[in-house]
């Protein structure tokens, strides 16, 4: 789950590549970074386990250090340095926590995995997260079963897996090369996706959030008449915010299995009627109620335009409010609405919503102290850890006990309310985490669709073509749910 879609480039490598190319060396510059990497990777010597006890159920070696890598994006790094790391230190004073934050996780960590010296705990997120599939395939991830079965910190009578939102453990499960299915990834942040608007703008104009397509388009007309762009997303680097809307729409039309088929790379999954209908509907919104210039803007630019009252609807997840904290004028009041129903015969009700665990965290199985990494997760999942996270970044975690009685800011409060209203009609999709190539293709096709260069059929067809190619590619690990 990318929180801040930074541009996919790192300054120093860019300079290196360019200089190298200037003397005709562009080729191995890419290779250079991997130089000596394939041959290295001797096994790291792992620390032995400690004695298991009530306070140390995972049996970690109490004086062994751990290294924590945090993606410094939408949620920053403060929640780790100010909350989770101190909690871990408090529980195990003799252990040392080495902290590092980065905006480019794969750039920093790829050589370390290749070199056989990975850090214990990784927040694998952002535009440049490490491919989970490749990590699983290479046996780099620690099986978290023991953690989920360990007693929780705040309520030792419960297992950790029973203190989190249902479905979260499953979301982080992957098929291994030998056909087993194990939990490898902890998705920690409760993320709700939808379309955001300013409560103040709507109240001032007497508008209400639409629930049907007719209401939605009618309102877009009114907004347009006021000289405000009704709808828009950033094409330059955040097109996936929009394929998320299209696929959410498709799930509402045809039920959550539409997305399951897509995730499982079923034949013709992208050409299901629901996907085509959703794409056609949104292509029309793009043509009539958006602005061509948005294709050249970054997410920060478009979000700023919404803050300035020049844009009414913007699709995003509920990290948006925290991300825009600095630019949001007083009284703006972020509000989330679910994607409106397209027809009366939609399989899911208008309240249905995409919600999932966001921000993936894992423990490296080949690090020196994987048990320490799991213990760090256990501390994160404690009530105190979850509460601290929520207080620091204003977002809910997958540990409901952490947000008990917490006064959320208006945006997150509205997304939590929407989540509650959705009841059992909550769904998710995972293909972008599993197959990054498919994500890239979907982004490109979405821009083509929304800015009027192709129609819904061509949209479905070109992504399907890429999905088929990935299905056939034996070097890519496949996942099922």
């Amino acid at each position: 789950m990318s929180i801040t879609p930074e541009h996919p480039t790192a300054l120093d490598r860019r300079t290196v590549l360019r200089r190298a190319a200037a003397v005709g060396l562009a080729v191995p510059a890419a290779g250079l970074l991997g130089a000596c990497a394939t041959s290295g990777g001797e096994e790291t010597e792992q620390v032995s386990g400690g004695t298991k006890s009530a306070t140390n159920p995972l049996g970690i070696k109490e004086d062994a250090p751990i290294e924590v890598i945090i993606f410094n994006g939408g949620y920053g790094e403060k929640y780790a340095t100010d909350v989770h790391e101190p909690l871990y230190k408090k529980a195990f004073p003799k252990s040392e926590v080495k902290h590092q934050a980065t905006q480019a996780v794969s750039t920093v960590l790829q050589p370390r995995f290749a070199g056989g010296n990975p850090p214990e705990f990784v927040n694998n997120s952002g535009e440049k997260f490490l491919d989970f599939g490749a990590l699983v395939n290479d046996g780099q991830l620690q099986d978290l079963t023991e953690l989920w079965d360990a007693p929780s910190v705040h309520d030792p009578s419960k297992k950790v897996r029973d203190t989190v939102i249902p479905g979260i453990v499953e979301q982080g499960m992957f098929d291994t090369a030998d056909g087993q299915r194990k939990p490898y990834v902890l998705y920690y942040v409760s993320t709700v996706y939808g379309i955001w608007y300013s409560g103040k703008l709507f109240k001032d104009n007497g508008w209400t959030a639409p629930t049907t397509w007719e209401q939605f388009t009618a309102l877009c007309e009114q907004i347009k008449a006021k000289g405000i762009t009704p709808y828009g997303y950033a094409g330059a680097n955040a097109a996936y915010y929009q394929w998320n809307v299209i696929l959410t729409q498709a799930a509402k039309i045809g039920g959550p299995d539409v997305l399951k088929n897509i995730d499982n790379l079923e034949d013709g999954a992208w050409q299901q009627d629901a996907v085509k209908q959703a794409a056609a509907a949104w292509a029309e919104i793009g043509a009539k109620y958006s602005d061509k210039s948005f294709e050249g803007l970054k997410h920060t630019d478009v979000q700023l335009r919404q803050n300035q009252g020049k844009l009414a609807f913007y699709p995003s997840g509920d990290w948006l409010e925290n991300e825009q904290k600095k630019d949001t004028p007083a009284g703006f009041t972020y509000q989330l609405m679910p994607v409106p129903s397209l027809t009366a015969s939609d399989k899911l009700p208008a309240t249905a919503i995409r919600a999932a665990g966001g921000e993936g965290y894992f423990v490296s199985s080949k690090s020196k102290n994987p048990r320490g990494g799991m213990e760090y997760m256990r501390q994160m999942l404690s009530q105190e850890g979850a509460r601290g996270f929520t207080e620091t970044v204003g977002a809910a975690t997958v540990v409901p006990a952490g947000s008990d009685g917490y006064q959320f800011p208006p945006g997150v409060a509205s997304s939590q309310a929407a989540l509650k209203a959705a009841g059992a009609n909550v769904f998710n999709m995972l293909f972008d985490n599993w197959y990054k190539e498919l994500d890239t293709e979907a982004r490109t096709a979405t821009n083509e669709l929304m800015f009027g260069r192709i129609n819904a059929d061509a949209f479905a067809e070109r992504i399907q073509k890429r999905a088929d190619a990935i299905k056939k590619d034996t070097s890519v690990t496949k996942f099922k749910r």
Partner: protein
Amino acid sequence: MRHGKYPFVIGFLFVPVTLYVVFVIAPYAQAFQISMTNWRGLSAPQWVGFENYRRLLDDGNFWKAIQHHAVLLLALPLITIAIALFFAFLLNVGGRSVGGQRQGVWGSKFYRVVFFFPQVLAVAIIAVLFQMVYRPNESGLINGVLMKLGLDPVLFLIKPNLALWSILAVLVWQAVGFYVVLFSAGMASIPTEIYEAAEMDGATRVTLFFRVTLPLLWDTLQVAWVYLGIAAFDAFAIVAVLSVDGGGPDGATTVLAMEIYRNAFVYSKYGYASAMGVALFFLTITFAALTLRLSKRESVEY
């Protein structure tokens, strides 16, 4: 001293050659090796032979990138050299004669500095700068003015058939300064008597340029062409930072280095990316060899 020569030479060569082998030759060789595997960056690679190269043949983005290199390869050197030559001529010999010496146009010292400015900026900064220049709405440098005048904004980086040219313009803008200096240096070494003689024979500035300056600058031009050609095979930084959606819209501005980057560092397909790298290597080498061979002609001694 005769038999002491070899140890002496070897002593000098040892360190640089070792460094070169370790940091240049070995990675090259390894790129070739990795390109024959399906390495995904983490565990041991598996040998797949020419599978990656076969796959290149039906990779749409790869061919798009090659096409863009073809366009850049022609347009970048041509436009840059033309502009740089023109400026260099004006700066050095385009003005009046003073005491038989040809001078640059008025203010040429000032312009010389100004032209060089883009060269001292980091590429990434230039790209960010041009994001502001090309921005498609009222806060863009160009479109802000256009929209004030009541015109429609020009979607520089968004229109698929305009995007590559917008990128090219930045590359030219950035390169011109350096070549003005290079050509100026070349022109400075042309003896002034030749100009004087030509002028006495009644040559105009245009004739001077085409009959005197250009032939005597041939060697420098050749070097410039090769450099710019190689730059045309790169263009990564500008494309990565400036273009929409990393080489978009829909691959309309993508270049090989961008595809290598994406395959290696986004998809973790290091084997496949290395195969692209090897392709790029051969393209660059072929280009350099061809240019040097084709542009070979008698240089004029003076």
